[in-house]
């Protein structure tokens, strides 16, 4: 009998043989977080990371070298990892969780999955950058700022807070990213400070003033650099990263609006799982993230604010960390972000 599909059959057979070779011959290939070649053999903690390899690799490598322990890292979206931790419950293979957004770690803490951190870890970070219940600590901070094209706009022209970007002067010149979680957290903080009515009014005026929607911070920055828009609401470090790559002639600069919630600090944070049977090691890992060396790495590579006491922000960060407001506890009230999304939809921003 002659089968018309003998070709795919042969292909599939070839694929299976290849797969078997890959599996049998060399095991499946895995790569470590930082890509370092001298990985310690000793088994160590498992980390769930909502931050990508480039953002944490050297800090993990540095702990591995000092502790002579191998850290296994699972990378995924912060929110997906938080949901996974909740489903895993006590059976979680994770010992620590490094969250990119503040809401996620609060949710995991609320589910009773994080253990209280030792006081000597909590003391490494000022109280406003950590969970009041001591279940997580902030590692780095990202400030919401106004980025602007310094060839077109003088910083003296910029308004004291983003509320001023609704003036006719800024019509069709402003970029923002209503769909990004950092923007949504900023709006949540606005609601907590100024109330829903004032926040909605601002959102509507922004839309009415022709604010241009971008998918994320990076595209806003690049659009400013290309001169397509003149200012944008973004996280500060995206500009700092570009300046460190492109040099001081890079046309985009950041402006920390002094007024109101002009610049708001959003935290990346870490916690240790209650179910971990390697808690002392996990604590040591958290301590390592807050060490001068790792804090130095975070601030110099990603230009984020280091949050540990005594850590020095990268010289490019001209605004002192203590001048940047932190949202109050309302930020981690998760139901609030849902309300924010609804408000942004009602006002036409989202």
């Amino acid at each position, binding site marked *: 009998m002659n089968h*018309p*599909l003998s*070709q795919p059959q042969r*292909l599939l057979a070839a*694929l299976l043989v290849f797969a078997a070779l890959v599996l049998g011959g060399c095991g499946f290939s895995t790569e470590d977080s930082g890509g370092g070649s001298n990985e310690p053999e000793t088994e160590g903690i*498992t980390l769930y990371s909502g931050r990508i390899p480039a953002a944490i690799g050297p800090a993990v490598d540095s702990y591995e070298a000092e502790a002579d322990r191998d850290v296994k890292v699972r990378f995924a979206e912060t929110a997906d990892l938080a949901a996974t931790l909740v*489903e895993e419950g006590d*059976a979680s293979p994770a010992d620590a969780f490094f969250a990119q957004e503040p809401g996620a770690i609060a949710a995991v803490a609320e589910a009773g999955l994080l253990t209280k951190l030792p006081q000597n870890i909590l003391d490494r970070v000022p109280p406003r950058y950590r969970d009041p219940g001591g279940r997580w600590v902030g590692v780095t901070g990202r400030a919401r700022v106004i980025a602007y094209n310094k060839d077109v706009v003088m910083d003296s022209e910029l308004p004291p807070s983003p509320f001023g970007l609704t003036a006719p002067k800024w019509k069709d010149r402003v970029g923002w990213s209503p769909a990004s979680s950092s923007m949504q957290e900023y709006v949540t903080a606005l609601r907590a400070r100024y109330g829903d009515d004032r926040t909605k009014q601002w959102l509507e005026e922004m839309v009415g003033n022709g604010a241009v929607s971008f*998918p994320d911070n990076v595209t806003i920055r690049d659009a400013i650099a290309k001169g397509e828009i003149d200012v944008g609401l973004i996280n500060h470090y995206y500009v700092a990263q570009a300046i460190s790559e492109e040099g001081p002639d890079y046309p985009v600069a950041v402006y920390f609006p002094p007024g109101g919630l002009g610049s708001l600090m959003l935290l990346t944070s870490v916690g240790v799982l209650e179910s971990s049977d390697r808690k002392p090691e996990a604590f040591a890992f958290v301590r390592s993230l807050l060490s001068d060396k790792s804090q130095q790495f975070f601030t110099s590579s990603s230009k984020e604010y280091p949050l540990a006491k005594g850590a020095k922000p990268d010289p490019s960060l001209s605004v002192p960390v203590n001048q940047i407001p932190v949202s109050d506890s309302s930020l981690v009230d998760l139901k609030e972000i849902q309300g924010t999304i609804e408000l942004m939809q009602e006002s036409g921003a989202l």
Partner: protein
Amino acid sequence: VLGARPAPVWLLGAGAIVGLAAVLPAAYLAVVIFGDFSAALETALSSRALATLLRTAALTAAVVVTSVAIALPIGWLTVRTDLPGRRLWAVLCTLPLVIPSYVGAYLLVAALGPNGMVQEALGVNRLPSIYGFTGAWLVLTLFTYPLVLIPLRATLRRIDPQLEDAARAMGRSPLEVFRTVVLPQLWPVIAAGSLLVALFTISDFGAVSILRFRSFTSEIYIAYQSSFDRVAAAALGGVLVVAMLALLFASSRVRGAKAVHRLGPGTLRPAPPYRLGRWRWPALAFCSLIVLVAFALPVGVLIYWASKGISTGSTSLNTIAALGGNSLLIAAWAAAIGAIAALAVAALVVRYPSPASRLIERLSHAGYALPGILVALGLVFFATRAVPALYQTIALLVFAMTIHYLPLAIGPTASSLLQLSPRIEEAARGMGRGQAEVFRTITIPLARGGMMAGAALVFLHAMKELTVTLILSPIGFKTLATDIWTQTTYGFYEASAIPALVLLAVAAIPVYLLSEQGAAPP
């Protein structure tokens, strides 16, 4: 049809195992929903959920209609006419299937979005927004219509031309012949392909998230990301399962009992191609437009980014090879297991129709209607409780992929069984062979073409899969898709282009074979 004959126990048992495996994610939703039933009910019946359901239904209907509108002419032109280069067009028009929806969506944004490439090229201030319905519709249509095209072409090849000859002899125009003779024979396969497109649309997250269309999957994601509300997410997932059942019901009504059997391969006279004459120019223009927008432009952008990425030296070939090997490993296993599982379900549904086999078929579709995050979390839930030793292993990952994409393999397998008359099997049984022997020596060889096509589709989708891989893979296990994700998360589009191109190249192999399905002379 031998509807009265009960299915052999072993086949029913195999089908039941497949159905139960595939229903695990839905069972997890049920566990969560019944954990807080009143809250779940409130979410599922809220006006917000209703609005989302209507939006998603509108998107699904639009994507299905345009997919058929693209696939039908292309299928006809590449099988039944003298379109110049028709075999090449068949391959080119099937290739958009290799582009993951998230890649397609961010390429669309890069090209047509605010301050994108097209706007730059045209030098205009603002283009009509591609966000929301328009963009999601465009992307999902362009990258899923081959799911209709592939089975359509396979069926068009097998249509017996004698009916058409008779109709023409009676003086009907070609258009009338198509409408009254050809189209009725195509509805079942169009319905089957449309079902896959519809289920893909309701479960897709990549395109709708990037293009900011608030479909059910976006709402599910918002429930996790913003309010961390697993009950709300599960309730919305439950609505998706109900929607899936409705779609399946509608599709089976269209497919109905219109089985068109032939006695076997080899009895078919190839149909003489229609001459297009002057019509070949608009036909070529149509095919070119689709290939340009759905394949050439996306690949062009990727190549452009890749050239920039190579010049900055960001990706090592060894890394890419290892990633490709991992992707291939998972996809090949999922394809092989999926094809076998699909055979059990398809044989039950086609050869032994009964309430039990219909139930198994419906259960088998549950994993495809749900977004990856719910499939992943469902298996997290059960694996950590029931088989902790398998949690986050290759075996569990392959299992998850298989149940996530199983319906892609069931469809073609069922089609190939439908086309061949059960009388062959009956004859063999009449000669005293046992059911198991008939299944082994007759049914499996007859279904092989469909199984291979199904395996290729599972392979292709498993190559592109992201969320399930991120959560359920062994720790440190990376694939081409996860690498693309890592790079694009921080806007490193240039660096993501190289793994994306490799993924496309590997996935293009089964697509090529799919487009050639049945092309060899019998």
